[in-house]
């Protein structure tokens, strides 16, 4: 109906979301906002990675009554990007947690979250 393949639509969406997150990350001065924009950026790149593994009219690579072993090779999607993205999601959460921990420490030290206030290591 739309003419575009499913994965192309989601690839464009993912890249646009990553650009939005990048713009926000570079313009905001508040550390919490930078972290939020980082998660948006991360989500966009995950969309891109999963979209590159899609096969036209593919289905999930899980063998049950709906997908037999014989037809798996012709109907299943590429499982490698999916497996990598599961890893990437957990690591993204870990990175977000460390960033938030640093944000809390910085706030406790200076009572502000603006990156303009942290100038000790500037030269």
């Amino acid at each position: 109906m739309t003419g575009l393949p499913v994965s192309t639509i989601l690839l464009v969406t993912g890249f646009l979301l990553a650009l939005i997150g990048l713009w926000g990350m570079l313009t905001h001065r508040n550390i919490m906002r930078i972290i939020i924009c980082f998660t948006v950026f991360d989500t966009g790149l995950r969309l891109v990675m999963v979209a590159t593994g899609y096969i036209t009219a593919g289905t999930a690579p899980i063998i049950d009554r709906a997908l037999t072993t014989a037809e798996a090779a012709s109907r299943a999607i590429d499982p490698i990007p999916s497996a990598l993205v599961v890893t990437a999601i957990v690591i993204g959460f870990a990175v977000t947690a460390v960033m938030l921990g640093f944000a809390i420490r910085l706030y406790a030290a200076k009572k502000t979250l603006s990156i303009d206030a942290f100038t000790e290591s500037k030269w």
Partner: protein
Amino acid sequence: MLEFLLLLVCASILAAGVLAVCLKNLLAAMVAAGLASLFAAVSFLLLAAPDVAMAEAAIGSGLATFIFLYAIRKTGNGKDEAEKPEPKATGGRRVSAGKARGGA
């Protein structure tokens, strides 16, 4: 029919991303980022990757939102911004700059 739903979901992801970047209220921005993640999980399912959709819904959208809530509570920032009426709240940049001056 499902193609239109897919396009709508993509538009919603982009709208949620723009809201997460632009909203003045820190809590609302955080919730909008969680919504972008939630719709991303739906589109992972439409890309036939249910494992990734499950991980994204549980971790990216659930646990990340929780620790963001705790961090906002600890930095005391969401509170200040949430209680302000909308017209009073200026951009995050100006608010933080003012605070920096006050702190210094």
